[in-house]
């Protein structure tokens, strides 16, 4: 584990927060919790209200013109030279890894590169940049973690969620079998290839159930929704929660709303 050394001067005063469309409509508590966590660390948060979607669904489906149109609208939101924090490795990966590809032959390429450079996934930002220290105030709980493939293979930050959870002394961290394997979500894949996706998510749900965890935690709401809804449908009581909400709730969050 190689953490970027941090000190007071490298901690940014302000960041942009890019909430993602899935969190906007389905898991807004995750977004709110992430903002609270950042603010508690003394970071001012800017949330451009004109943000919509990073463009990833179109990009992954081969609709590059549409992806470019949408991505370009997002570029306009981040004019200040401050970090952009994204509570999803998948959307962060879109900006950091794929914007440079998408804008490759475009006049605004340098703008895209600049924004890609400043983009961080939330758990990465909390550990590497803010060097956050967490005090666990919650009751003992066993959690299973699912790190997204974007976190693992694209952003290479899959272990940051473990680093954060390890700071919480009342949290037991169970490891599902084949934890590095994809859950079968893949955005539109789940709808376009429902049979394969079902086989994949059922195997994943089984592995998580086997850990006897009470809760499933992850850094990407797409995977969480996929596995969580599968667990629910199979009648399991394991709930799913985004890491930001989990951390905020357990570290005194709701009581110290600022």
């Amino acid at each position, binding site marked *: 584990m190689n953490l970027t050394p941090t000190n007071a001067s490298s901690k940014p005063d302000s960041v942009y927060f890019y909430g993602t469309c899935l969190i906007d409509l389905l898991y807004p508590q995750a977004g709110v919790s992430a903002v609270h966590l950042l603010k508690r660390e003394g970071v001012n948060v*800017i949330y451009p209200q004109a943000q919509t979607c990073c463009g990833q669904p179109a990009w*992954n489906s*081969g*609709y590059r013109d549409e992806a470019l149109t949408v991505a370009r609208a997002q570029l306009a939101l981040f004019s200040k030279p401050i970090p952009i924090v994204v509570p999803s490795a998948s959307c962060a990966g879109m900006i950091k890894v794929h914007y440079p590809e998408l804008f490759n032959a475009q006049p605004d390429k340098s703008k895209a590169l600049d924004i890609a450079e400043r983009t961080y996934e939330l758990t990465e930002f909390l550990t590497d940049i803010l060097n956050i220290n967490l005090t666990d105030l919650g009751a003992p709980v066993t959690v299973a973690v699912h790190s997204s493939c974007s976190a693992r*293979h694209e952003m290479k930050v899959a272990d940051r969620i473990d680093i954060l959870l390890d700071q919480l002394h009342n949290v037991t961290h169970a490891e599902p079998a084949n934890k590095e394997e*994809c859950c079968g979500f893949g955005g539109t894949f789940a709808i376009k290839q429902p049979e394969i996706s079902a086989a994949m*998510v059922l195997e994943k749900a089984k592995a998580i159930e086997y850990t006897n965890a009470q809760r499933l935690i992850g850094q990407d709401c797409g995977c969480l929704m996929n596995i969580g809804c599968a667990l629910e*449908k199979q009648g399991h009581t394991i709930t799913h929660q985004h890491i930001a909400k989990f951390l905020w709730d357990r570290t005194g969050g709701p009581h110290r709303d600022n």
Partner: protein
Amino acid sequence: MTTEFRKHIQHALTQREVQANTKNVVNRLRNHRRAALSDQADWQRLRRQSTAIRTHAVDKLPQLLELLEDKLTQNGIRVHWAETTEQANQIVLTIMQQHNASFVIKGKSMVSEEMGLNHYLKAHGIECLESDLGELIIQLANEQPSHIIVPALHKNRKQIARLFHTYFPATPYTEDINALAQSARHFLRHKFATAPVGLTGVNFMVAETGTLCLVENEGNGRMCSSVPPVHIAVSGIEKVVEHLSDVPPLLRMLTRSATGQSITTYFNMISSPRKPDEKDGPLEVHLVLLDNGRSRIYNDLELRDTLNCIRCGACMNHCPIYKHIGGHAYQTVIPGPIGTILEPQKSGLNLYGELTQVSTLCGACREVCPVSIPIPKIINRLRWEYIRQSACNIPGAGSGKKKTEAIVWKIWAWSCVHPVVYNRIGRTITNMRSLIGRILKKISAWTAVRSTPKLTKTTLHERLKALKIEDK
């Protein structure tokens, strides 16, 4: 996606025994690879080197192929060029006919699968016999390989025992693996001794020395290439490397990535037919070089990386989709992630474009690829070519274009660049969340195995506005 293709996948997902066998072998291969490449620094260094070697060779493909032909010819190996699989088959047939040969014994070769060689020769009255144990099993069962390294991985010991008992009635029924291998060995021994022609694939072709390298574990490749008086090797044009010194790092990477072995039991370097003072070896050695769309792939700088492949099979071993559906569901010569990018480029997006949709883009394949082929990136590119009319040279580009789908994406893009519209849609969705929940419930693709996601009452935009979070 056409019904035909989906049907194969649906069928594959009901084959419990195949799934269990596939998962079992794939898990074992993953563990072996992990053990062999456990030193991260070592793996990274070896991977960078292997990638550099393959990239260099593919970039210089035209020159290296000319050099290879010169050197092979000097060494007495006859070189034949085939633009299509039909031409490649004809070349093999002609050589067979020149020797009045009606039987060929084969070592494992995926290019011969690509050619459909067995089928072609059979139609011309020539019998082919596979001598690789896995390929022999497949041939006896009248099936296609389901994996490029372990062609019969979808079959378990009991199934193979039954198959062997049917075809080798003299051998008593046994499930003992050694005994099964022995019965195949016994059967093949006489065939090696009497075959007029042996045919093999090639793993690496060294341009500077004119050497054909063949990697194998069973010794059957050596038998095929040294016992019969005529040896025919078939290879894709991309298998060339420039220097002899390029081979050891690639070999090291190939065996470790494929089976976790440090080295295979046999490594053959074929550099000429039998020389006058030699007592054994074939009197004639032929190399058939197959293009079949590879030079077209070479012409596109982004797609060119596809040709780096050294056919180790690590991408399929680590693919969660391959693990669930098995190799046959792909309906291609080469299955798994590499097949997903290779087959549509070779045979056309009109035939295999649907394959590009069979990926979550999870990136496990890219992670383990010993020559760093950016498979997800190429899948993404092919998805783009699949739905647009373009100047790109992949056959069947644009064949996956669907009007309604295109309109949906246009509307989606329009609403995403108009935040007012986007937020109004968000508000409408959340206002009508119980109705929309009921509609979502009807999307059986999702709800067959999952509950319906719960829409929020208040969006993040609204919540952060209420919390007076700065907007600019």
